């Protein structure tokens, strides 16, 4: 029995959350340090996972398996493939930065008196973030569908409180209106995702029923089902498979989010603090796209092939629509949110292109988008904290007073528009190539997203950072050391992944090959090869 | 007893005779009429009586169906005890007022009609659908006597249920007692305290004035007259007021009285005395007699009775005074 590394990776933030929450109300700073330590420990564990993972080895590694609810065939089964490893690492590495970025976000506002000894917003904030981390990591490593489902849904609880309970400092003068907006956003987030989750629950139960014919009885184990399918022991009726696929897919599409079930994201990201917004889009939403790759494709290959045309069209709409709406936004954070919708379109496009380039690209995209959005959004958050407004029109000429802030913002933006040399370029290009080889028209349409991305990023940069300095901003401080310490590593990672993405591709590519063989697809041959 | 045996022979037969049919067709309409009366009568007492009638008829049907014990119990328990209980409560709650049958909930009548029709039709359809067949007859089951047969079942197969119903009855009795019992949580006030409270509140301390029983009319529903001739509502029981059964004092009578007094005065040749004697029941003359000196012959109750027939002079009648207020 080897050391249960994956369980440890899940437990570390969970224990950290409890410890953070337990810090007495007066010792705010202690809570922050506890949280940071816990997240760093998690990051170290995740990197250990990354190191222990052998790219060429078994599909699922570091597996753990224990009976949990034997009556229903539910097991506590953990395991990571290359895709999961990448995302676990992304999550664990991002969280310390988010904690660092949100260091003062949940402090009591000036003039606010504690409502009692139990009033501990700071502790709560960081504990909730750690809770989310634990649940997200669990969703990535769970190979039992039921186990996954539980954490997929439970994630909503801390997220709900993070969105509804901790808004950014913008527009404090209209606190009531803002609180109302925030509650609206939180409820919307919850309802959308709950709706998806319930549909998925039905599908999970359906799956349980559909696997009843297996010799070992019903099971939720991904591996067992996949093996049974491969050996022909288990076959789904066509309609059953399609309905089950839809049940899973709708839940993941809402989480991802895919047009037209995307509208919760701009509200949620707009109203929450920058770190939480990053948490939503960079970490939590990734569970959706990850699960598409792992569950939708892995469990229901034929239904996936059946749904592909529709999904591709929806993804294309997401790409263009998200980008166009980003252009139309007046609120910085909402702009970034819509840009994320566009990017999720790319990820889903890559997944359903069913080529190794597309899916490897999509996985890389998940990681890179996480980092790039984090960089852009966190800097935007720093900016918003300084000025107290999210409106783009309230800024101008920041470049002059805070050049480093503007510079990091620009780099984040350039990464968002997938400039070569930054990580997102590699992934976007892979997605597009992979899509093009199978669906040329889709590949070309998606290219419109590239142009629009340049437009919205540069318009955002131009309106906020350039031009004459607005008088309100003339005394704006540049990035503080803490903020720089948060942003600089992110930028370094972006550039590293853009220049040398091999560590990731080496891990991800074999996993994608497994997924593709699940689906029974192989890359289209080049025209010349095919002719020979 | 002879009817009983006749009925029992009826029930014992497997194929029913024409006699039972006659009985049924006579009694059943009455039962239905009773049921309808129960729900349609405005006065609850009538409802109760209608229900009792239906129950008696049902008891007869029980007997006809060979359930002698039940038939008797029906009469004794239901018609006897339960209905009496109903009537008691009715009296307690107030028997007088007839219910208004006007519907207050919107759509309730329609819903009731639809439901009644639907349920009725469905039940009858259900009965029609079931293969009812014919009577097997209870001759065998009642061979040892109906009561014995029931008893042997009750104390063997239904023993537990029987015990439980016993418990239920006990609980019901205790519960009813608990519910209706009112715990005395304050010390009861003494007579003295009550009197003091009355004085303090300014309510009538002495007994109320009597009605015009001895004045002119020999009845309790005629108000007594105040010294100035106006009738006083206080003198009549409030129940009569509520029932609207208070009789008017006719104005001719008053006028005749006044004329009589006048004639007497004229005859005696003396002026009408200004000293209107106050009714003995009245404590003070509240309003001053502003018409002193005018000719108002106040007829006083000669009999020394507390209540006097105050007579109102038509000429100066603004100082109407209510005695005992």
């Amino acid at each position: 029995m080897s050391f249960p590394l994956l369980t440890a990776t899940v437990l570390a933030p969970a224990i950290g959350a409890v410890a953070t929450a337990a810090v007495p109300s007066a010792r705010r700073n202690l809570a922050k340090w506890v949280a940071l330590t816990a997240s760093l420990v998690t990051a170290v564990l995740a990197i250990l996972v990354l190191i222990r993972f052998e790219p060429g080895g078994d599909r699922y590694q570091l597996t753990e398996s224990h009976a949990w609810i034997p009556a229903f065939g539910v097991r506590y089964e953990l395991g990571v493939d290359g895709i999961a490893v990448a995302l676990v690492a992304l999550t664990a590495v991002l969280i310390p930065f988010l904690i660092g970025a949100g260091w003062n976000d949940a402090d009591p506002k000036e003039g606010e008196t504690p409502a009692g000894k139990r009033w501990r917003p700071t502790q709560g904030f960081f504990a909730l973030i750690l809770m989310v981390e634990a649940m997200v990591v669990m969703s990535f490593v769970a190979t039992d569908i039921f186990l996954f489902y539980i954490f997929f849904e439970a994630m909503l609880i801390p997220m709900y409180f993070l969105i509804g309970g901790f808004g950014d400092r913008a527009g404090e003068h209209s606190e009531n209106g803002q609180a109302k907006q925030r509650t609206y956003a939180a409820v919307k987030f919850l309802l959308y995702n709950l709706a998806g989750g319930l549909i998925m629950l039905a599908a999970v139960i359906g799956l349980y029923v559909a696997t009843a014919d297996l010799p070992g009885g019903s099971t939720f184990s991904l591996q067992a089902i996949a093996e049974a399918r491969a050996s022909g022991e288990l076959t789904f009726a066509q309609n059953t498979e399609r309905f089950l696929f839809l049940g899973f897919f709708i839940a993941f599409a809402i989480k991802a989010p895919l047009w037209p079930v995307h509208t919760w994201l701009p509200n949620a990201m707009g109203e929450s603090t920058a770190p939480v917004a990053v948490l939503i889009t960079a970490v939590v939403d990734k569970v959706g796209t990850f699960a598409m790759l792992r569950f939708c494709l892995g469990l229901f290959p034929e239904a996936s092939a059946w749904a592909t045309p529709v999904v591709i069209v929806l993804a294309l709409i997401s790409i263009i629509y998200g980008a166009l709406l980003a252009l139309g936004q007046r609120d910085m954070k909402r702009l970034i949110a819509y840009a994320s919708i566009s990017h999720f379109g790319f990820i889903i496009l890559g997944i359903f292109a069913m080529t190794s380039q597309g899916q490897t690209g999509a996985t890389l995209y998940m990681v890179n988008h996480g980092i790039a959005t984090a960089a852009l959004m966190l800097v935007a958050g720093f900016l918003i904290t300084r000025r107290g407004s999210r409106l783009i029109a309230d800024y101008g000429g920041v470049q002059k007073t805070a050049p480093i802030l503007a510079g990091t913002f620009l780099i984040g933006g350039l990464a968002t528009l997938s400039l070569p040399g930054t990580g997102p370029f590699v992934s976007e290009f892979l997605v597009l190539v992979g899509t093009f080889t199978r669906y040329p028209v889709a590949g070309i349409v998606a290219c419109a997203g590239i142009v629009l991305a340049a437009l919205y990023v540069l318009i955002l940069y131009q309106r906020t950072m350039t031009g004459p300095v607005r008088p309100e901003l003339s005394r704006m401080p540049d990035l503080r050391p803490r903020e720089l310490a948060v942003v600089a590593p992110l930028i370094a990672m972006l550039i590293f992944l853009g220049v040398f993405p091999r560590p990731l591709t080496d891990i991800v590519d074999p996993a994608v090959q497994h997924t593709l063989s699940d689906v029974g697809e192989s890359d289209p041959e080049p025209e010349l090869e095919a002719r020979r | 007893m002879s009817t009983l045996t006749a009925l029992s022979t009826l029930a014992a037969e497997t194929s029913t005779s024409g006699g039972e049919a006659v009985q049924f067709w006579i009694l059943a309409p009455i039962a239905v009429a009773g049921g309808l009366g129960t729900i349609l009568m405005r006065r609850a007492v009538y409802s109760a009586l209608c229900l009792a009638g239906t129950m008696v008829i049902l008891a007869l049907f029980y007997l006809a169906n060979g359930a002698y014990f039940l038939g008797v119990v029906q009469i004794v328990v239901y018609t006897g005890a339960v209905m009496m209980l109903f009537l008691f409560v009715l009296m307690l709650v107030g028997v007088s007022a007839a219910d208004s049958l006007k519907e207050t909930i919107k759509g309730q009548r329609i819903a009731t009609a639809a439901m009644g029709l639907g349920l009725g039709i469905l039940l009858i359809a259900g009965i029609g659908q079931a293969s009812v067949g014919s009577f097997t007859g209870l001759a065998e089951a009642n061979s040892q006597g109906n009561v014995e047969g029931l008893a042997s079942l009750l104390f063997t197969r239904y023993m537990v249920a029987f015990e439980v119903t016993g418990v239920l009855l006990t609980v019901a009795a205790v519960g009813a007692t608990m519910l209706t019992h009112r715990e005395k949580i304050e010390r009861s006030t003494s007579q003295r305290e009550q009197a003091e409270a009355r004085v303090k509140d300014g309510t009538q301390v002495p007994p109320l004035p009597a009605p015009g029983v001895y004045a002119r009319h020999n009845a309790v529903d005629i108000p007594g007259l105040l010294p100035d001739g106006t009738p006083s509502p206080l003198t009549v029981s409030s129940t009569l007021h509520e029932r609207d059964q208070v009789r008017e004092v006719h104005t001719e009578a008053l006028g005749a009285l006044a004329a009589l007094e006048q004639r007497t005065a004229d005859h005696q040749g003396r002026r009408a005395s200004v000293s209107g004697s106050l009714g003995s029941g009245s404590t003070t003359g509240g309003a001053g007699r502003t018409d002193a000196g005018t000719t108002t012959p106040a007829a006083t109750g000669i009999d020394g009775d507390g209540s006097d027939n105050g007579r109102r002079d038509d000429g100066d009648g603004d100082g109407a005074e209510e005695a005992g207020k």
Partner: protein
Amino acid sequence: MSPENYLHLAALLFTIGACGVLLRRNAIVVFMSIELMLNAANLALVTFSRMHGNLDGQIMAFFVMVVAAAEVVVGLAIIVMVYRSRHSASVDDASLMKL
């Protein structure tokens, strides 16, 4: 004479009782209507008893009577209580059970 006649009568009485429950506001009359329904059921039970030639139906009816008696006792007590506190025996006056 067929059992159906009795059963039809029982059904009719039952329906009448049900309508009474719905139509009347006086709690006591409502109660009486319920009694009518119970009696209708009893009639059916007794008929069944004779139909099948055993006494179980009668036993059922007997239990129904007992329970009805208990119910009447408690129910009337409640009515008295309600009347005491609200000075009304109308079931519509106790209409606080709503949103």
